[in-house]
């Protein structure tokens, strides 16, 4: 049971990172990224392949973050000057193509066979039998650092600028700021976090193959952000550690409910996520959290 709890918590911590990244891109920046899982997958593969080649895990993780950030910036550049619909489809297309390349270019990625024997960071530090707890600590530490960074960013002048480009790009443009520049930077920072999350995924499972990465990662992240309240990092953390925890935790039901296989259970879980997204967007569009520094704006707009 403890082992099960630790495993679920680790998965949830990684999902929380993805949620935080999406919260920066979509919640604060208004940029829809439907290709989250592709960027995450890229992070996992960069970190995994470099580690297998003998690079120290932390270096591999850093390279993964930089690489995914760079590619996020490029994919944003293709379409940021167009409306949101286009960015959404470009990110989705990018993710699908990346999955194809990783599946078929076996000389580089070992294709469907997957990459095995990925080394975890600090894995010799923990006493025998405590490796998973140790890794959970690392993952939670990463969540903490990312959370603190994003909170700092949200309260900084840059954070205000990001929210302003989301709410009214015209005004930002008129004030002499470059909307394009802001959006590309937001996408790059979000990409770095996705690279980190993907790298942790590779370290945690120590084995990666293309089937591990699918739209479910994207679905969870959107759920976390919609429930937590767009723009609220705290809300995203809370929703990740409650909602995604429950959803992930439901895996054990396979052993208890007869006639319900793992794939049926996965279908039910995702069905709930899909319907939940629509219902929340209709009835509780602001989620349950609150964006920092949004009270003043809310007051002034309600007095109008």
């Amino acid at each position, binding site marked *: 049971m403890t082992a099960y709890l630790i495993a679920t918590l680790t998965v949830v911590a990684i999902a929380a990172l993805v949620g935080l990244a999406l919260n920066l891109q979509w919640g604060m920046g208004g940029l829809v990224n439907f290709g989250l899982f592709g960027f995450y997958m890229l992070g996992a593969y960069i970190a995994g392949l470099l580690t297998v080649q003998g690079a120290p895990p932390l270096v591999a993780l850093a390279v993964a973050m930089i690489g995914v950030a760079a590619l996020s910036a490029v994919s944003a550049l293709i379409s940021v000057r167009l*409306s949101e619909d286009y960015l959404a489809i*470009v990110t989705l297309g990018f993710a699908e193509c990346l999955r194809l390349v990783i599946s078929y270019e076996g000389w580089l990625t070992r294709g469907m066979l997957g990459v095995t024997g990925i080394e975890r960071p600090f894995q010799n530090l923990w006493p025998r039998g405590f490796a998973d707890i140790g890794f959970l600590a690392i993952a939670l530490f990463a969540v903490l650092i990312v959370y603190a960074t994003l909170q700092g960013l949200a309260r900084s002048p840059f954070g205000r600028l990001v929210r302003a480009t989301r709410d009214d790009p015209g005004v930002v443009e008129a004030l002499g700021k470059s909307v394009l520049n802001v959006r590309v930077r937001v996408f790059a920072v979000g990409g770095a976090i996705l690279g980190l999350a993907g790298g942790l995924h590779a370290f945690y499972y120590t084995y990666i193959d293309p089937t591990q990465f699918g739209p479910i990662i994207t679905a969870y992240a959107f759920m976390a952000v919609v429930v937590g309240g767009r723009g609220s990092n705290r809300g995203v953390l809370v929703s990740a550690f409650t909602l995604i925890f429950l959803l992930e935790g439901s895996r054990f039901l396979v052993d208890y409910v007869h006639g319900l296989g793992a794939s049926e259970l996965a279908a039910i879980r995702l069905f709930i996520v899909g319907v939940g997204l629509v219902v929340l*967007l209709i009835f509780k569009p602001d989620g349950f959290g609150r964006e920092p520094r949004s009270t003043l704006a809310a007051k002034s707009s309600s007095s109008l």
Partner: protein
Amino acid sequence: MGQLLVNGIVAGLLLALPALALSLTFSVLRFANYAIGSYLTCGAYLVYIGNVVLGMPLWLAAGAGAILFAVLAVAIDWLAYRPLRDRSGVTLLVASMGVAIALENVIRFFAGNSPRAYDVAVARPIRLGDVRLNHEQLTILMVVIVALAVVWIVFRFTRLGRMMRAVADNPDLAAVRGITRSRVVACVWLISGILVALSGVLVGLDANIEPQMGWTYLLPVFTATILGGIANPMAAVAGALTLGIAEEFATLVMPVHYRMIVTFLVMVALLLLRPWGLFGTRWVTK
């Protein structure tokens, strides 16, 4: 060469119906429906129920399934999209992704992940010189051309078509002239529902019926629609044909499994150079 062209045209026609449907809903609602892939899958499975489970002949099952799915599309619009109509476009995008996830997993729950096929007789391909055309391709050719002709006639020559074009052009002006928007929207969903369900059947004939089938069509359908200029329904058909032929000829230099990458490259080039589409006008840039 001739074979590649024929295959390309058939692939393009397969894309034409969903691209037309996507562009129809976009032109009237200004909303890019990301659930269109799941719609396609859903239509294909509904027809599968009629054809294989209930034992209807395929044409009957396809007709019944398409109408049933069209009603479903209107219902989904009522339940999910209508309450969000006044919100920002981004909200609708995410909602449509939610709809897509939900639909696809209903299918996965009941039908499982294994691929299925319609109950049709296997027939020998027809040879015309050195070009081979199999029966599925012939069916695709005929169904798509008839469907396109019908939509074109409705769009061009009927009262409903005029109303649809009026709402697409300027909803406020259309409302002033006494056109009920909600009724036009319902009709648009009915038409695009029928088109998408039919294309689901055709894709199922051409390949297999599986929960992922629509998902793999999402990117090509969007690319075809953007190629035509996204709010221009009939141009979407031209976009679909262009893309289908381009994909087929790209197999000369790229492995077949990288079709999607060809599509993606076409889209990227398009968004960088001519985001208003090959045939569209320049309003879309922001």
